[in-house]
């Protein structure tokens, strides 16, 4: 088929517009969190003592950390939609959550006696955390994948990894409603590990689904 012929087909197809809405990013976040929350309410549920600890800085820290992680990465997701995007080092986007995490750890070390550091870090339910956060991340991850697939990311594995990390952050935010382990050291170790897992899953999905 000659180019001129082929162009006929593209011109005729021009009326069928693909498109991302300007509000798409907000919708992605809303849908992602809603998905995660729905699974959460069906299988886990909010911790019994939630009303008593709601103002506890330990709990607040978990939410702030998770929100800062996925929130800081959203501009990166948006940039990856465009093929010509000039991505500064991904580490730049992780500065704020890293800072939040460092503050949390410092606060924990300053306010709890040395004897409680290790037991706080290991917590009571580390394995549940490692299982739940990736499970809760699957909904938002699929939403993010569809979103990125509709764009034109030229680095499929990296884009998938970023999506996995964002989904992990969203899942951590939801899981914090349930998680009874409140030490910032627990968050630093197990939440990070769980989010690393979702990042890996995202990278693998990206390699498969984000090529175009």
């Amino acid at each position, binding site marked *: *088929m*000659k*180019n*001129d*012929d*082929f*162009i*006929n*087909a*593209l*011109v*005729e*197809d*021009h*009326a*069928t*517009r*693909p*498109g*991302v809405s300007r509000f798409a990013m907000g919708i992605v976040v809303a849908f992602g969190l809603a998905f995660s929350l729905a699974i959460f309410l069906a299988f886990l549920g909010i911790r019994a003592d939630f009303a008593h600890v709601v103002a506890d800085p330990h709990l607040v820290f978990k939410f702030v950390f998770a929100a800062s992680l996925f929130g800081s990465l959203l501009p990166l997701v948006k940039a990856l*939609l*465009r*093929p*010509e995007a000039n991505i500064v080092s991904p580490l730049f986007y992780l500065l704020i959550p890293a800072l939040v995490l460092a503050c949390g750890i410092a606060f924990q070390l300053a306010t709890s006696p040395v004897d409680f550091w290790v037991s706080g870090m290991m917590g009571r339910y580390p394995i549940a955390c490692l299982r739940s956060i990736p499970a809760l991340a699957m909904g938002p991850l699929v939403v993010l994948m569809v979103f990125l697939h509709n*764009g*034109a990311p*030229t680095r499929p594995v990296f884009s998938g990894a970023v999506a996995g990390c964002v989904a992990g952050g969203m899942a951590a935010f939801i899981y914090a409603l349930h998680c009874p382990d409140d030490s910032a050291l627990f968050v630093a170790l197990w939440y990070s590990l769980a989010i690393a897992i979702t990042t890996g899953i995202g990278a693998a999905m990206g390699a498969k689904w984000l*090529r*175009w």
Partner: protein
Amino acid sequence: MNDFDTKTKALGVLLQRANAGDALAYRSFLEHLAPLVRGMARGGIGRIGTPLADLEDAVQETLLAVHLKRHTWREDQPIGPWIAAITRYKLIDLARKYGRRKEIELDETFELAAPEPEEPALADHEIGRLMESVSETQQKVVRSISIKGASIREVAVTMNMTEGAVRVALHRGLKAMAEAYRRLAL
């Protein structure tokens, strides 16, 4: 402002008009884009040692990618880097496909070469063969619109379909072709 910037600036104006619904501007955009992409592809292909027979495949594949991803260009941004990025991405696909056949070292840093205006006269290349993997109806629709230059309405009449169905078949057919191309590269 260099030659590439001047040329692509005009393309930006055309795509902007096309986005506003001007089909003629869209045709003009694609017709001007083809030689530009051909030049870039020739530069890139020369460096990876792929035979020129693959050149027109690369051009059509890139045009198809630009078409399917045209909503990712932001009208307030220069269009040149956007086009170059898509072309580079598609050339890497091509290099990967060829690299597996011939084990050629891949240098992923393509440079933009001067545009080549003429279109090599190739009767039927890969895109024709790719059509085999597309459903029969979609194939018929894409073929009659491309080769015979029929409009959606004409195809709807001859194939006894609604215009909406033709539109959908065309769009899905093009997407399936892009998908088939991609699978060849894996």
